[in-house]
């Protein structure tokens, strides 16, 4: 063994390589070629064959995707090109030296052999790979309007005027330039914005002299957005801040301005349009019709970079909107409700985690001193909402957890009794039934009723170890499908033979862990990711465990999205059943890693509550 001192010292310090023994490090060093790239020179083009693990020894490298968007910047000790070596696929990104850079090119076969023999190295790169893949999903065949960059909406050069101009001069310039807003500059730099509305409210209505400098009425340092940002985020920024004009910068310089009306040029196939469209409907039929666009929108979202978390929020927002609008229709048809009430979303809708295939879980709570016969109103209203949701594609809950079921349409006091019983005299069966009730969220009506119920739950549950232990035992009904040899154990019978259920075996266990851990930490957070973070903040989980579970959830959800997108493309109904045979060996390996994480966390939870 001929040592190669400095090279080996460097490799040994790299994360992932730090667990290799001297011989393995020497093998890696001997399989290395060193190349020098001048600042600005290309290393790998997209689509190039790459058979090396590339490590930045000194200098810096950046990766850009096929759109030219920056994927990541890499510094000393960081690697690139491993996805193509691990997947035996061409380079996905364009790599370029952004400083004078020395790169170690480690032979890919040697690297793969070393991974096979060393779990630490393997795990590190599998993780790195899923990180890299999740940063930019590979499938980008379809790009909806939501994907247009805000820069593409800019129609003309920015229209500006110096800050020393008077209000009158500014207004005249706006008229002659036919713009509804003017950017105010000092030298080249933008210092403010003045709109039609400002002239109306801050000058005319305020009786201010038009000879004053425009700087006196401008909005200083307005919110800006980079030209590379998605048009979608520009729309969000404008809505959130209630502004109609947004200056756009490129490379830190003013590049133009977009206004709300510019978005009319975007296709109407945009999630935000569906929300406002549903909110305009006055009949259940109208809502059902609007919802026909939902599958296409979901597909567009999946394929334009949305991750599982964003998609869950998107679908849930639509469901919430549909629910609210149906309740408004009910109020119009039936007259006002007899007393205060709240419509409760539960399960995945409650957690903001709905997928393309979700059924409805909901309930209704009303105030305790309701007038006699009040329930007749609630029963009819619940019927309208449940039927409407079903017609929109949110099928009836198979377990009948819906507000149309009298049992789940009760006054606050009765709800407290339910929870009190579940928590203080828990029975396993009842609990299995009840756990989605812990994911409750007010969608419509009197928020106070739901808040009161939630604080009651937290007070009763958080200190109750027996209850939490039983929840834990229950949660073990969902197991990640890893057999003794870490091979997948698949559904052995039925329609979904040789597939695994990503929801039951992957997502649900994480949802359960998060629910129990956050309750134990005395937190009634709603979404699984927030629950994990809250549990970590409350000391119920380490930060690393919480993050690992979130990563695993991200990965499994991403896989489910891609799977459902393929099904929807093929004209099939989306489901959760994935055939591992369809997966590349690498994705399979990542999925195993994610499942292993879930299992480790389940074990830790069992230990926490002393369950065998």
């Amino acid at each position, binding site marked *: 063994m001929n040592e190669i001192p400095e*090279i080996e010292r460097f490799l040994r310090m790299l994360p992932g390589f730090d667990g290799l023994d001297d011989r393995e490090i020497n093998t890696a060093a*001997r399989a290395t*070629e*060193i190349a020098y790239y*001048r600042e600005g020179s290309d290393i790998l083009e997209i689509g190039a064959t790459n058979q090396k693990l590339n490590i930045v020894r*000194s200098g810096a490298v950046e990766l850009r995707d096929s759109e030219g968007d920056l994927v990541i910047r890499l510094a000393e000790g960081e690697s690139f090109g491993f996805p193509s070596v691990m997947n035996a696929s061409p380079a996905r990104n364009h790599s370029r030296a952004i*400083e*004078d850079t020395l790169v170690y090119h480690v032979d890919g076969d040697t690297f793969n052999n070393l991974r096979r023999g060393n779990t630490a190295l393997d795990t590190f790169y599998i993780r790195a790979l899923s990180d890299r893949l999740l940063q930019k999903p590979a499938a980008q065949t379809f790009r909806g309007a939501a994907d247009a960059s805000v820069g593409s909406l800019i129609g003309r050069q920015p229209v500006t005027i110096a800050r020393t101009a008077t209000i009158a001069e500014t207004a005249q310039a706006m008229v002659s330039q036919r713009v509804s807003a003017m950017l105010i500059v000092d030298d080249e730099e933008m210092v403010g914005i003045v709109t039609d509305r400002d002239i109306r409210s801050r000058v005319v209505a305020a009786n201010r002299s038009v000879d004053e400098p425009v700087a006196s009425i401008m909005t200083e340092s307005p919110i800006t957005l980079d030209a590379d940002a998605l048009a979608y985020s520009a729309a969000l920024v404008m809505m959130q801040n209630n502004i109609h004009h947004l200056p756009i910068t490129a490379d830190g310089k003013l590049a133009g301005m977009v206004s709300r009306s510019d978005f009319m040029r975007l296709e109407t196939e945009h999630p935000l349009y569906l929300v406002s469209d549903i909110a305009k409907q006055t009949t259940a039929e109208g809502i059902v019709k609007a919802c026909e666009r939902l599958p296409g929108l979901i597909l567009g979202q999946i394929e334009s970079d949305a991750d599982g978390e964003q998609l869950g929020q998107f679908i849930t927002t639509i469901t919430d909107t549909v629910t609210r609008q149906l309740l408004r229709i009910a109020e119009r048809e039936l007259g006002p409700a007899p007393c205060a009430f709240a419509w409760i979303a539960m399960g995945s809708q409650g957690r903001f985690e709905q997928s393309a295939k979700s059924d409805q879980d909901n309930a209704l709570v009303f105030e305790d001193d309701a007038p006699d016969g009040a329930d007749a109103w609630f029963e009819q209203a619940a019927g309208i909402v449940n039927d409407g949701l079903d017609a929109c594609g949110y099928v009836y809950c198979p377990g009948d957890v819906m507000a149309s079921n009298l049992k789940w349409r009760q006054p606050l006091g009765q709800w407290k009794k339910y929870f009190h019983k579940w928590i203080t005299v828990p029975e396993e069966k009842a609990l299995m039934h009840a756990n989605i009730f812990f994911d409750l969220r007010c969608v419509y009506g009197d928020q106070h009723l739901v808040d009161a119920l939630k604080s009651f739950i937290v007070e009763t549950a958080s200190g109750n170890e027996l209850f939490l232990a039983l929840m834990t035992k229950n949660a073990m009904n969902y197991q990640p499908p890893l057999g003794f040899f870490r091979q997948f154990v698949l559904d052995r019978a039925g329609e979904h033979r040789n597939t695994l259920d990503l929801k039951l075996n992957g997502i649900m266990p994480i949802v359960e862990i998060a629910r129990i851990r956050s309750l134990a930490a005395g937190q009634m957070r709603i979404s699984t990711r927030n629950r994990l973070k809250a549990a970590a903040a409350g000391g119920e989980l380490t930060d690393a465990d919480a993050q690992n579970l979130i990563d695993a959830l991200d990965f499994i959800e991403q896989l489910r999205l891609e799977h459902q997108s393929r099904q929807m493309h093929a004209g099939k109904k989306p489901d959760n059943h994935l055939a591992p045979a369809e997966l590349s060996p690498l994705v399979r390996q990542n999925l195993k890693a994610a499942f292993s994480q879930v299992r480790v966390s389940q074990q830790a939870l069992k230990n926490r509550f002393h369950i065998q």
Partner: protein
Amino acid sequence: MRMLGLALRRRWLRGKHSESPFAEFLSAPLPESGAPFNDCEFVCLDIETTGLDAKTADLLSVGWVVIRNGRVDLSTSETHLIRPENDVGDSASVHGLTDTQVSRGKDQALVFSRVVEVLTGRILVVHHAGLDKALLDRLCTARFGPALPLPVVDTLALELRRQQRRHHVSENQSLRLGDLRERYNLPYYQAHDCLVDAISTAELLIAMVATHDGADNTRLGQLVTGT
């Protein structure tokens, strides 16, 4: 011109040495002066010796690595410790080698034969080639008769020549390997054994080539500083 003279000398010597690794060395074709950088193979080599006088010093250790396709190929790297004829003397404190370590070394003639083998068809690269080349020449003369006839790229001489051409020579600008590496944005290496220095030199050469004309526009003739 340098390369042409070299070719003639090698052809003449070939007649006299028909066997031994040296014969093979002489008959292997060398790339022409107009050959692109990436088509040539270079042996970047560093030697540690028992002294600073090429007439009396012995090899203590030698390390090298090959550049091919414009990349430093570490699979070709080798280091050899040599058993000296005399004791290690003062240089031990320089190189951190002890008599015991060195006594485990190999026979000098054997290692030299390996050096000749590796240099076959390739160009020698040394930083500050003077002493190292003189020593190799002496060993070659002792073993086969003539001095070692091959093109040499001296990275120090190359940098000096470049600076002179651009009238950039400055008295206080060090041309030491470590300082030059820093100027070409290459990493700092702590260790100083002959293999590390050989790799350091190799990296410096590819950095110089990339920086000045680029590998695609660099011909072998532009790099050769001696024979």
